């Protein structure tokens, strides 16, 4: 299988381990990724609040490049990139005014026809059966909280991906690894997202509730598909515990890392050593076939 690949800035920077683990897993599953040549920023986080035109034109440029390079389906593992690409597609399709302005700006004609996949829909395409049949490590005692955040499922009318209030597709992927998804409450709550820098206390407060609920529902690990979610839940966790004592740590893994673990891939190659919250105890407990809470 072959997919176009739009890594976006996070996966080439702060979320390097997302990129590493995804490529490692896909290699194992005989799936090729072809990176869009000369891709640029999708405009996420800031463009749409600064310039409407830019927020469409930036993703449009990447979509046009993908098409020129003969791609039909592209993977945008970062939830924010996925969201921006889909929103841009929607706007270009429904709003002639913005399309004409975009085409003028980019000096190229835009045409629809690229299927944008997120991390979950990518694994659905590859086939959950394939993950299931290749799983090597016993996950049967691993309780997983699947955290979607906001960008993967909303706005539903545009993304048309899963139930915006109670999504379950990530749970299906997690089940394929043999782990047990927990039925918890905060899978689509806001983590504070880009307030991380300017209003850290908001992010800590919101993320704390998410972490608490996952632990409350006996999760051993939280799995995410968004670099923003990851950085808030992982990087801010130590401070959260410091400011609100009496809490346990919980490792935060990308979905691709969890799959990689179940396939028995090398931990270093999956970037499992790159997190703020140590993943070693979790990994150790897996190899002992016993899971620490």
């Amino acid at each position, binding site marked *: 299988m072959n997919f176009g690949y739009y890594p976006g800035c996070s996966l080439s920077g702060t979320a390097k381990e997302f990129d590493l683990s995804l490529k490692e897993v896909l290699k194992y599953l005989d799936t090729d990724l072809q990176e869009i040549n000369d891709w640029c920023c999708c405009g996420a986080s800031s463009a749409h609040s600064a310039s409407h035109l830019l927020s469409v034109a930036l993703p449009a440029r990447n979509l046009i490049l993908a098409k020129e390079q003969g791609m039909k389906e592209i993977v945008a593992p970062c939830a924010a990139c996925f969201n921006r690409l889909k929103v841009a597609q929607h706007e270009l399709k429904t709003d002639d005014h913005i399309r004409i302005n975009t085409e003028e700006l980019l000096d190229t004609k835009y045409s629809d026809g690229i299927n944008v996949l997120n991390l979950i829909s990518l694994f659905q395409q590859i086939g959950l059966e394939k993950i299931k049949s290749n799983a090597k490590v016993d996950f049967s005692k691993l309780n997983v909280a699947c955290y979607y955040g906001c960008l993967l499922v909303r706005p*539903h009318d545009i993304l*048309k991906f899963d*139930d*915006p*209030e*109670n999504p379950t597709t990530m749970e299906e992927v997690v089940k394929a690894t043999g782990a047990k998804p927990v*039925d918890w*409450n*905060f899978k689509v*709550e806001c983590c504070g997202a880009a307030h991380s820098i300017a209003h850290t206390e908001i992010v800590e407060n919101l993320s704390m509730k998410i972490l608490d*609920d996952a632990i*409350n529902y006996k999760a051993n690990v939280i799995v995410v598909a968004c670099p923003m979610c990851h950085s808030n839940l992982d990087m801010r966790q130590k401070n959260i515990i410091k400011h609100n004592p009496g809490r346990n740590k919980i490792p935060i893994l990308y979905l691709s890392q969890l799959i990689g673990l179940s396939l028995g891939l090398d931990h270093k190659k999956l970037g499992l050593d790159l997190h703020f919250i140590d993943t070693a105890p979790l990994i150790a407990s897996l190899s002992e076939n016993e899971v620490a809470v």
Partner: protein
Amino acid sequence: MRIGVFICHCGENIGRTVDCPSVASACANFSGVVHAEDYKYMCSDPGQNLIKQAIKEKNLDAVVVGSCSPHMHEKTFRKACSDAGINPFLVEMANLREHCSWIHDDVPSATRKAIDLVRMLVEKVKFNEPLIPIRVPVTKRALVIGGGISGIQASLDIANAGYEVVLVEKEPSIGGHMSQLSETFPTLDCSQCILTPRMVEVYQHPRIKLVSYSEVENVEGFIGNFSVTIRKKARSVKDELCTGCGLCVQKCPIKKVALSDFDEGLATRPAMYVPFPQAVPNIPVIDRSVCTYFKTGKCQLCKKVCGREAIDFEQQDQLIKEDVGAIIVATGYKLYTIDKKPDESMIKGYGEYGYGKFKDVVDGLQFERIASASGPTSGEMLRPSDKTTPKKIVFIQCVGSRDESKGFSYCSKICCMYTAKHAMLYKHKVHDGEAYVFYMDIRAGGKNYDEFVRRAIEEDGVKYIRGRVSKIYEENGKLIVKGEDTLAGVRVEIDADMVVLATAMIAQNDSVKLAQTLSVSYDKYGFFNESHPKLKPVETSTGGIFLAGACNAPRDIPDSVSMASAAAAKALVLFGSDVLEREPVVAKVNEATCAGCFYCQKVCAYNAIEQKEIKDRQGNVIKVVAYVNSGLCQGCGTCNATCPSKSVELLGFKDDQIYAQINSFAEVF
């Protein structure tokens, strides 16, 4: 043809802007016009006499009146002319008031237009033919579909007036949703106490034929003459033998095999069951999907204990035919359930409220069952999950209603009232409990309605919070309700023990199918449409079919009952005459030119076009042509426009008549 033209001044209403005398004199020159005059008030007695006199003196055989809209006085002038011996369908009206004098200022151009308008109808009337009103006999018997409070009321009204009623109910028992309710607003009287006597009255009424556990399969015919096919579903019990002793239900060995619909899934019932103890008729049903006999061929315990040998495992669905003259649709509503996935239905769902996931998040009808003395908790206020008394309860209004993005844009109308009632019932039973209501607006229009809501707030201390709830989740056995108080401008979080969602009233699942069976129109939500929102609120677009209750729109009990009585009155008006007269504006086929393509049949919304065989003297079929059943035809003329050979024509609006108008619109402009 000798045509008379009469121009009305309508006091000054027409005369001010249209020069009526010169219109009359211009019309006098039209070919065929032998008489033209103008008068101050044509519709008055002297005005009408003027017309009658002219008809006699000038021997007129057609009349064009230039006055107000035909919607206003067409009947008046037709009658006047008919009294003077002219067929009423040889009278046409030019609308010189609403369509001319009232909307123009300039006298010369308005006068020119008036002349044009009259000329067009003079040309049309030359092609008019005398028509005779259609007379159809009336079967003085009514069908009522649905045995809820609306259907019960309508049936009793008609039966008490002396006519027979066939009442069809799809469930094993009549009673509808009202039988599920605990107490009713704004008086808090017990719902079953006021309903069950009515149910018994229906059952014992000599003129009501109750056909329960049955559905309307097909409807043919037209006003006064419907032929209805009813599917009587197999109960597996012979209703003529069953005495309702209930022994079979007691002995059914698989007790808690299915969730009770009557208790909204909060209790279970055996495979052999009556929906509730006061059911009418009190005849059990075997749920074949769970019955041991139907699954394994063994058991038959019910059959063994039945002294009357009423159990019949071999029973099949039966089709019965009933002839009726009027139909009252009273199929009611259902509650919007919200555990639906998006994309699977038109409803996008409220996953954030966790309905279906958290046992203590219930909907309005479930709460009714909890509050009801006949319910699963015998009226004790116990929450479903652990059967403890909730000390804090949250009610959320407008779930599914007034919410275009997730549910429906309409207001469900009864929820403000029933939520206030729920909160009150709760407070009356749990004195130290706290009740919160999240609302958008309180719509308590109705006699003693607002007072009722005020009572809930002021006397019973129910806390009303204006705002929406964004999420409900479970934490340590509590339901955390996160919402917003928009009046105080703050976020609120309530750790409730139980949550009640005031989910919207929506149309029944099969309402669209039934509407199509009956050929009545329905709105985008599946509610049946009334013929006119103000002046014909219980009629449908199909003659002889009337609406009652919540099948038309969300409606509470008092409104449903009055609507049911109104629908009954309409049926009784119909039964007041032995024959019906209808305007003969119906389609007619020219059998000589009809080629039998039956395109007309495909476009007819009323199934009015039938196939007719034309035979030679030996009885051999030489061709098949279209035939219009004038009882069914409503006169839209779509067949006329569709017919490739112009063999079907709409009387009163034939091609010739319309071409005559087109040809003459611009003689002088």
